[in-house]
C-alpha cells in the first residue's frame, strides 16, 4: 500500500513539474482531459463489464453545455463545468435506462445509436453552431477571482480536478459499491440471486461514468475554447475505447496511459501522415484486440505480479 501511495505521489509530482520540463501546457491539459474521459469510460467496461460505444455523447454534450453557458450566459468556469456535468449525468440517466434493457452486444449497439442521435441533434440544433461548432469560449475567472487566462494557472486547475476525479473513481472501485459492480461483471445472474437489484447498480454506474465523461468534456471546452461536432462523433467514442484497450481495461492507471499514448500519437501523426492517422489507429485497434487484450498495464501486471495488489489472505 505504501508503495502505491508513493508511486501516486511521484506521478502527481511529475504532473506538477511537467510544464517546466518543456512540455506545452495546452497539450498537457488535452492529455489530462482525455485521460479522465478514458477513466470514466473504463469505469463501465472495466468494472461493470458494459461496453458503451457512445461515450462521446456525454463528453460532447457537456462540452457544448459548458461552452454555451460560459460564452452566452456568462457563467463562471466552475458553474459552466457543473452545468456540463449535470447535462451529461442527465443524458446518462436517459441513455442508461434505455441501454441496460439489453445485454452484451446489444448494449453496445444501443449506446452507439443513441450517441448518433445526439450527434444529429448537435448538427441541427440552433445553439451548437452546426458544422462550425461553438467557438471562442472564454476562460473567465474561477470563482470570479482567479483569472484562467494564463495557461499555467489553468493547467494546475485542470490537473487538480483530474487528479480528484481519478481518486474519486479509485474510491468507487474499492468501495463496497464497487465490489458489487465487479460481482455483476463476473456473474450477473449470481449477483441477482444474492439479492442485488443489478439494473439499479448498472444504472448508477452508467450515470457516474457519464457525469465523469461530462467533466472531461467540460474541461476540454474550457481548455481549448471550442466545442465541435467531433466531440460527439462516433470516432471519438471509438478512440476512447482504444485508449482503455491499449492501456488495460479494468485497471485504474491503464486508461490514463492509453489516453496519453493515443492522444500523443494523434498529435504527432496529424501533420505528417494526414488521413493515414485513421489507418494507424485502425491497425492498433486490430493488433490490440488480437494480441494484446490485457493492454499495457494488464500485461505489466501479468509479467510482474508484485506490481498488482496481492489477494487478501483472510476471507
Amino acid at each position, binding site marked *: 500500500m505504501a508503495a502505491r501511495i508513493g508511486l501516486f505521489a511521484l506521478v502527481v509530482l511529475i504532473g506538477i513539474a511537467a510544464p517546466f520540463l518543456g512540455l506545452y501546457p495546452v497539450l498537457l491539459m488535452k492529455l489530462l482531459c482525455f485521460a479522465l474521459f478514458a477513466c470514466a469510460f473504463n469505469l463501465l467496461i472495466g468494472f461493470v463489464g458494459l461496453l458503451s460505444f457512445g461515450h462521446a455523447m456525454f463528453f460532447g454534450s457537456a462540452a457544448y453545455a459548458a461552452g454555451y453557458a460560459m460564452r452566452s450566459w456568462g457563467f463562471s468556469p466552475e458553474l459552466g463545468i457543473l452545468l456540463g456535468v449535470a447535462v451529461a449525468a442527465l443524458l446518462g440517466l436517459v441513455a442508461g435506462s434505455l441501454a441496460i434493457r439489453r445485454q452484451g*452486444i446489444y448494449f453496445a449497439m444501443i449506446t452507439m445509436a*443513441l450517441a448518433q442521435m445526439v450527434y444529429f441533434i448537435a*448538427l*441541427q440544433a440552433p445553439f451548437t453552431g452546426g458544422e462550425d461548432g461553438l467557438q471562442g469560449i472564454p476562460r473567465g475567472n474561477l470563482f470570479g477571482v482567479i483569472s484562467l487566462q494564463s495557461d499555467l494557472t489553468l493547467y494546475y486547475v485542470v490537473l487538480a480536478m483530474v487528479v480528484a476525479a481519478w481518486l474519486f473513481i479509485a474510491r468507487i472501485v474499492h468501495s463496497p459499491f464497487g465490489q458489487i459492480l465487479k460481482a455483476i461483471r463476473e456473474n450477473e445472474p449470481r449477483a441477482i440471486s444474492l439479492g442485488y437489484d443489478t439494473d439499479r447498480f448498472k444504472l448508477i454506474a452508467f450515470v457516474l461514468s457519464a457525469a465523469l465523461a461530462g467533466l472531461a468534456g467540460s474541461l476540454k471546452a474550457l481548455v481549448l475554447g471550442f466545442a465541435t461536432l467531433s466531440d460527439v462523433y462516433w470516432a471519438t467514442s471509438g478512440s476512447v475505447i482504444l485508449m482503455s484497450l491499449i492501456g488495460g481495461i479494468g485497471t485504474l492507471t491503464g486508461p490514463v496511459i492509453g489516453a496519453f499514448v493515443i492522444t500523443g500519437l494523434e498529435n504527432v501523426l496529424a501533420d505528417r501522415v494526414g*488521413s493515414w*492517422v485513421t489507418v*494507424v489507429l485502425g491497425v492498433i*485497434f*486490430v493488433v490490440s484486440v488480437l494480441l494484446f487484450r490485457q493492454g499495457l498495464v494488464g500485461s505489466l501486471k501479468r509479467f510482474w505480479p508484485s506490481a498488482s495488489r496481492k489477494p487478501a489472505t483472510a476471507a
Partner: protein
Amino acid sequence: MEIFGVPLVALASQLVLGLVNGSFYAMLSLGLAVIFGTLNIVNFAHGAFYMLGAFGAFFALSTLGLNYWVALIVVPLAVGLIGILVDRGLLQWLRGLDPLYGLLLTFGVSLILEGILRDAYGSSGRSYPRPPALNGVWNLGFMVLPISRAWVIGVSLVVCFTTWFVIERTKLGAYLRAATENPSLTQAFGVNVPLLVTLTFGFGVALAGLAGVLAASAVQITPLMGSNIIIAVFAVVVIGGMGSILGAILTGLGLGLIEGLTRVYYPEASATVVFVIMAIVLLVRPAGLFGRA
C-alpha cells in the same frame, strides 16, 4: 389529391425514396443477422464493406472500364472475397471469445478501410453515372416512378427473399442452421463447418457489397457513407432483433418507409427518427419486435 396537406405525388415519391433507403437497411441488417447467427460477431465493418462496394463500382467504371452490369456481379464477389480474407486472417482468432472483441476488431478494420479510401479519393463525394437502361420513368397514374429506384427496390427484395428462402427452406440452409445450433455435432455428421462459416461470412459481406453497388448510382459515394449507415442499421437491428431473417428484412424496409414519411411531414427529424423508434421499442418491447426475450 392530398393526404394531410401533402400532395399524393410528393408523398408517393418520398415513400419510394424511403423504400430505397429501406432496401439498403434490409440488405445490411440481413447480412449482419446472418453473420451474427453463424459467427456470433457483430460486424461493424459491414458499413465499410458497403462503402467498398460503392467505390468498387466507381473504380470498375472509371479505371477498369467495366460497366454497371458487370460491376453488379464482380464487385460483390470481390468484396465478399475481401471479407473472407478478413475472416480467415483476423476474425478466426477470436472464435469463442466475447462477441464484443469481434465488434472492436471489425471497428478497427473499418477505420483502416475508411482511412485508405479517404487517402485515395478524399472526403468529398463522387457520383456514379446512372446506366442508360435505368434512366426514364414509369407513369403509374397516381405517381411517376423513376426506373432506377424501382430497380434498387426490386433487386433488394429478390435478393433478400432468396436469402430467406435458402436459409429457412433448403438443405444448405438446414446445414447452416445446424452449424449455428451445434457446430461440433454438425461437424461430426461430415459437414465442413469452418468452411461453411467462412463462406457465410463471405456471403454476408458480399450482400453489403451488392448494396454498395446499388447505392453507387443512388447516392453520393463518400468514404464515410459506410459508418453513417451502419449506425442506423444497428438501430434497425436493435428494433428487429437479430434472431430472425425475415424480421431483419421487414424491419429494414419498414424503417425506410417511416423515414420517408418523416421527411414529408417533419423533415427536421428525418435523421433521428430511426433512433427515436429504437428508444420507444426498447421501452415497450425490450427484446425487439422479432426477438425472443
